[in-house]
C-alpha cells in the first residue's frame, strides 16, 4: 500500500470539491471494500476523502411514500430499520445475507453499490485483468470461472457484481442520488451500472468525482410480499453462487405484479424483466414460473464451469415464486 493523504469532508459539496480534478482521489465510506482493495494492490489512491461523517445517515419516508436511504447508512442500520423490514422485506434479507455482522456494521449503502467484483483474477495483481489493467486480457473466460457471469458478459470480462443489497434494490426500481461537480442528479439503477462491452473497467455511470448521496425506493406495495434467497458454498459469510429477490402479487390465481432480480449472474444486479413480462397477467403456476425463468435465461451464455448456474437460477425462480404464491393463498 503506497502512502496517501487523508481528509474528512464536513459537507457533500465540500467532499465533491475536494475530489474535483484528482483522478487519484477516492471517497472512503465504511472502508470494507476499499481498504481491502488497497491492501491487495488493486486500488492505490493518493487521497482518501472520508465521507462517513456526512449527514447522509438517515432513512426517511418521503411525502410520496418513497423511502429515502442515505448513502452512509450502514448495512446493519438498513436491515434493522422497521420501514425497510415492513415495506421491503427482501431488501432487509438481502443485506443480512451479505458479509458478516461486523462488516455490515461498517459497510455503507453507497459503498455497497460500488463494490468491486470478487473474481480471483481481479484480486490477484500478478494476473492480467481488463478491469484492473484495461487491455491486459481476461484469463477467467478460458480459466477458472465457476462463479462467473452467465448473462450480459463479454469476452473482455466475465466477472459478477458481488452485492446482495443491489439485487433487492434492482427489483424495487431503486434510483441512485448523486452529487456531481454540477450539483445533484438522479440515476435509476439500470442506468447506474454500465454494460460490460469492451470497457469492463468502467463499471458505473457515475461521473468522475461524483458522490453517491443516497438511494430512493419508490412506493411498491408488491414489495411487502417479497423475499431474498441466496445460495452459496458455505451456509454463511460467503458470496453468492446465485441469489434471487422476488415479489409477487396474485389475485384469483393470476399474476398481477411480479418483481424478479438475480445476483451473481452478471456484472450487475440482474433485473429479470423478460421473466416479469412473461408472467404478468398469466397464471401463477409452477409451469408458468419455469417458462418465465426459461425466457429470461434464454439469453444466458454459460461457460464450461458455470453452466450449473442456469438450472440453479431456474430452480430458484420456481421455488421462490411457488413459495410466495402459496403464502399469498394462505
Amino acid at each position, binding site marked *: 500500500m503506497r502512502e496517501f493523504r487523508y481528509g474528512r469532508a464536513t459537507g457533500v459539496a465540500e467532499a465533491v470539491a475536494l475530489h474535483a480534478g484528482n483522478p487519484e482521489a477516492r471517497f472512503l465510506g465504511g472502508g470494507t471494500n476499499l481498504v481491502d482493495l488497497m491492501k491487495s494492490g488493486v486500488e492505490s489512491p493518493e487521497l482518501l476523502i472520508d465521507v462517513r461523517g456526512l449527514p447522509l445517515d438517515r432513512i426517511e419516508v418521503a411525502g410520496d411514500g418513497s423511502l429515502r436511504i442515505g448513502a452512509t447508512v450502514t448495512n446493519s442500520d438498513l436491515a434493522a430499520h422497521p420501514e425497510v423490514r415492513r415495506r421491503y422485506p427482501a431488501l432487509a434479507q438481502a443485506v443480512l445475507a451479505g458479509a458478516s455482522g461486523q462488516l455490515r456494521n461498517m459497510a455503507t449503502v453507497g459503498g455497497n453499490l460500488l463494490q468491486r467484483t470478487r473474481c*480471483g483474477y481481479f484480486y490477484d495483481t500478478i*494476473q492480467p485483468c481488463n478491469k484492473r489493467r484495461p487491455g491486459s486480457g481476461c*484469463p477467467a473466460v*478460458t480459466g477458472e470461472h*465457476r462463479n462467473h457471469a452467465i448473462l450480459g458478459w463479454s469476452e473482455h470480462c466475465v466477472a459478477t457484481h458481488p452485492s446482495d443489497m443491489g439485487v433487492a434494490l434492482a427489483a424495487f426500481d431503486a434510483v441512485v442520488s448523486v452529487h456531481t461537480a454540477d450539483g445533484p442528479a438522479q440515476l435509476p439503477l439500470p442506468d447506474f451500472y454500465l454494460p460490460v462491452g469492451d470497457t469492463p473497467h468502467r463499471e458505473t455511470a457515475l461521473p468522475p468525482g461524483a458522490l453517491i448521496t443516497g438511494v430512493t425506493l419508490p412506493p411498491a406495495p408488491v414489495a411487502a410480499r417479497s423475499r431474498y434467497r441466496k*445460495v452459496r458454498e458455505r451456509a454463511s*459469510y460467503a458470496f453468492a453462487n446465485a441469489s434471487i429477490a422476488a415479489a409477487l402479487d396474485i389475485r384469483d390465481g393470476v399474476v398481477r405484479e411480479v418483481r424478479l432480480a438475480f445476483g451473481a449472474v452478471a456484472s450487475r444486479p440482474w433485473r429479470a424483466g423478460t421473466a416479469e413480462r412473461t408472467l404478468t397477467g398469466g397464471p401463477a403456476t409452477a409451469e408458468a414460473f419455469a417458462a418465465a425463468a426459461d425466457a429470461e435465461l434464454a439469453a444466458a451464455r454459460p461457460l464450461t464451469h458455470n453452466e450449473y448456474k442456469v*438450472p440453479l437460477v431456474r*430452480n430458484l425462480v420456481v421455488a421462490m415464486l411457488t413459495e410466495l404464491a402459496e403464502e399469498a393463498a394462505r
Partner: protein
Amino acid sequence: MTAPSLAPGRTGVVGTARTRLEGRAKVTGAARYAGEVPFAELAHGWVATSSVARGRIRSIDTEAVLAMPGVLAVLHHGNAPRLRPGVGLFGPDATLQVLQDDRVPHVGWPVALVVAETPEQARAAAEALVVTYDEEPHDVAFSADHPGVYTPEARPPAPPDVERGDVDAELAGSAVVVDEEYTTPEEYQSPMEPHAAVARWENGRLEAIDSNQGSYAIAQYIAQLFFLDAASVRVTSEHVGGAFGAKGVRPHLVFAVMAATMLDRPVRVVLTRRQMFTMCGLRTPTAQRIRLGADADGRLRAVDHESVSYSSAIQEFVEQSTRPTRVLYATDALRARTRLVRLDVPTPTFMRAPGWAPGSYALESAMDELAERTGLDPITLRLRNEPAVAPASGLPFSSRNLAACFEEGARRFGWPDRDPRPGVRRDGRWLVGTGVAASAHAAMTAPSTATATAEADGTFTVRIAAADIGTGARTALHQIAVDALAAPPEAVRVRIADSDFGPAQFAGGSMGTASWGWAITEAAAALRERLALADEIPADGITVRADTSELVRARQPVERHGFGAQFAEVAVDPASGEVRVRRLLGVFAVGRVVNPLTARSQLVGGMIMGLSMALHEEGVRDTASGSLVNGDLAGYHVASNADVPPIEADWVDDPDTHNPTGIKGLGEIGIVGTAAAVANAVWHATGTRQRHLPIRLDRTLTR
C-alpha cells in the same frame, strides 16, 4: 527444608475434565503469540514473492526500494547469508533454501525480503520491488494419468507398495466388484494465526520466538542451517494459534534470522494470509482408484487401492493415502500403491491426518458402495471384515475396539431404524439421509526428554519442549505430572515450548501427549525415587531428567492405532444443490483419555475439519499462470459457524497394555472418516454418489 511427603499412587487427576491452564490468558487477550512480543528497535520484514510459476530471476531493482522511507535492507539471492544445504527436520528440505539462487519453482516462491522500520513501510517497499524473470514453461495440471507419474522412494512409516495375495485372481473370482475413482482437491491447513517469528541476537545467542509445532527440533535445524553451534540457538513458542501440520520450519523464521543477523537488531517477519497459501505447505490433491472384490455375503476377497498425489519440483513429499487400507479390513488379497507426480507447485506437507484423511474418504466411500451392491447394512459389512491382525503387516493390534465403536455409535445415532433405500426421505425442500464410515489413525510414540524439579518451597516444576498448538497439551501434561508426582495440582507447574528444555517430539502425528506424557511420567518417577532418599531440598531444588529414547526403541512391534466410527445425517436441497450436515456423531477407541473436556474439543474439532473437507475446501489452481485463484479466506472456504450442526464425540473403553501411559493421541483421528460419512449420507439422501470432494452445490444440483 524437609522433603515434601509424597502420597503413594496416583491422584486421579488424569481422566477428569479440566479447563485450560492458559484459558484465562486466552479469553482476556493476555496470551501473547509469536508476533506479539515487543522489542526496542524492532524492525519489520516483508516477503516479496514470485509472480511466475517457473523460471529464473533476471533482475531485482533494489535501488528504488532502498530509497523508500524507512527501508533498512533488501535481502535477495545476491546478498542473503548462505545456508547449509541438505538439512531439514525430516531429511533435506529444499523449501527452506530461500534466497540461495535465482531459481523460481512455483508462483508465490519467496524472492526477497524487505526490512524497514515499520510494517507499513516494509509492506509498501516489498510491493514496489520490481523483479523480472526469465520465464520457463510450467506444468501445474494434476491428474492420475499424467505422464510423469512415478513410484516414490520408500520412506517411513509406509512403503509405497504393499502386495499380499493375488489381487487380480481374487477380483476375477469375486461375486461383487466395486471399481471407482475418487478425488480430493488441494487443501490448506489455514491455522488462524499466520506464521510469525521474531529473531534477535542477545549475548551471543540467537533467540527466536516462533509460531511452530516443536521448538527443540526447529532450534537444532536453524543452528544447522546457519552454521551455528546448536547451543547458541534458542527457540520458544509459548502460544501457537493453530498449526494442523503447517508449522514446522517455514521461511518466515529463516528470514527473521537472516535479517536479524545482517542488521544486528530484532526483526519480526509475519506472513500474510495470501503468502500462507504459497509458503506453508498444503495437502496435495489425490486421485485414488479403489477396487474391492467380495463374495455375495460381503466377505472381502480383494482390496486394491492406488493413490496418486503431487509434489513440487524441488521436494518429494508423499501423501500416504493408502494407510487406512493397510489396517482396516481383512481380505484375501491386498494391494496398496502410492504414486507421485512432480509439478511446478508449492511443496505439499502434512495436514491433519496426512494420508489417513483423503485415503479414508476413498476407502470408506467404496465400502459404502460395496454395501449397496451386496445389499448389506454398511456396519454389518464392516464388522464382517474385521481383521484378527493388520492386513498389510500381519502384526497384531495393540488394541482395536472398532466393533465396539460401531455398536455404541449405532445405538446412539438410531442407526438400527434406518431405511437403507436412497432418495426417499423428504423434509420440506430437503432430501435427508444418513451415512457411516470408519476412522483410524496411527498411535505412535516418539522419544522425548523431560525434567522434573522439586523446588525448595515444596512445589514442582516440570519442563518439556512440548508445544500446545491448541490441543490442550499444556493442561493434559499438567494432569499427567500431577498424577505422576502425586502432588496437589496447585503445587505443580508445567513449562513447555522452549528449546532449552531439551529434545522432545513435535506436536504432530497425534504423538505429542503420549510421547511427552511418557517422558514426564519417567521424570516424575525418578524424582520421587530421589526424594525418597533426600533429607532436604537444596535452595536450587532437585532436578532429574528422563529420556525415553531407549524405552521407545525397546517396544514390541505391534500395530498401534486409534479407531472410530462416524455417523452423519445430511440434508440436500436438489433444487439449489445446497448440502447441510444436520448432525454428526463420532465414537472412538483412543486409549486412555487424559482430559475429557479438551479431548472432546479435539475430536469434535477434527470432525468439523472433516465436514469442512467434505463440503467446502478446495484450492483452485489456474493452469495458465500456475497460481491459486482463491488463495484467501474469502475464496478458500473453511466451515463457518453456520455450517456446523450439533456434534457429539465420545469414546469406548480401550485399554492399551502395550503402552505405558495408555495414551493413543486423538488430535487427528477426528478428521478421518468424516468426509466419507457425509458423502455416504448424501448418497443415501439423493441416490447419487459423490466421488469428488468437495461436495459442491454444482455436484448435487438437479439439472
